């Protein structure tokens, strides 16, 4: 099955990105496809490479980057939401790309299920 994932909250403040991450890992382990992970609202803050959590905490941003590399995930950050919040190409973490909201609609069309994580 093809899953589309929508993440609407940033890292650390809300659990949304953590839950989405565990969901995506579990789905991949079961042999499902992840059509795209789309970051919207404050979710775009999951994509900044300037994130620097204490060493004994998980690095949410790097975790996504690594999972994307390993599984060729398409991590898309909404351009309008990103510009509003100061996320741009210069501070974008590896594995993420900035694109339009149309990519979210496309995910809704192409994926078998769209699962939203937010607040």
């Amino acid at each position: 099955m093809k899953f589309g994932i929508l993440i609407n909250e940033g890292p650390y403040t809300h659990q949304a990105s953590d839950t989405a991450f565990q969901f995506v890992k579990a789905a991949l382990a079961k042999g499902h496809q992840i059509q795209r992970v789309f970051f919207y609202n404050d979710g775009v803050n999951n994509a900044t490479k300037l994130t620097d959590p204490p060493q004994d905490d998980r690095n949410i941003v790097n975790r996504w980057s690594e999972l994307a590399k390993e599984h060729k995930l398409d991590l898309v950050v909404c351009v309008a939401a990103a510009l509003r919040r100061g996320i741009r190409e210069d501070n974008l973490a590896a594995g993420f790309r900035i694109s339009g909201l149309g990519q979210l609609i496309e995910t809704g069309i192409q994926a078998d299920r769209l699962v939203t994580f937010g607040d």
Partner: protein
Amino acid sequence: MSEEMSESGVVKKFMYVNRKAPYGTIYALESLEVVLIAAAFDQDVSLAFIDDGVYQVAKGQDTKSIGVKNFSSTYRALDDYDINKLYVQKESMEARGLTDKDFLVPVEIKTAAELSALMEQQDVLLSF
């Protein structure tokens, strides 16, 4: 404003479930931005306003003094985008002392039961 884009012939039913009031948080505005883009994909789009979401389409919004853009007028443009299925949940409306005269766009008032039947028919639900 966005340039046109065409999709393969798939038409899915998309429902936007709006449960948050405008201005206090950004969800109402950014949900509306998704809806405007969605219109270019020729999908079957509907909007549901539930709980505090009903305040999004309440008449008379005036944001001058808070220094925030008043995007309530944009709901009136949805018809130009061929988006005309706007549902306000009846119990939510009544609980907030609103009536069908209090909205800035034509909306259909639906009970929770009617709305849940519509929700069941959807392929994709986006909640903000």
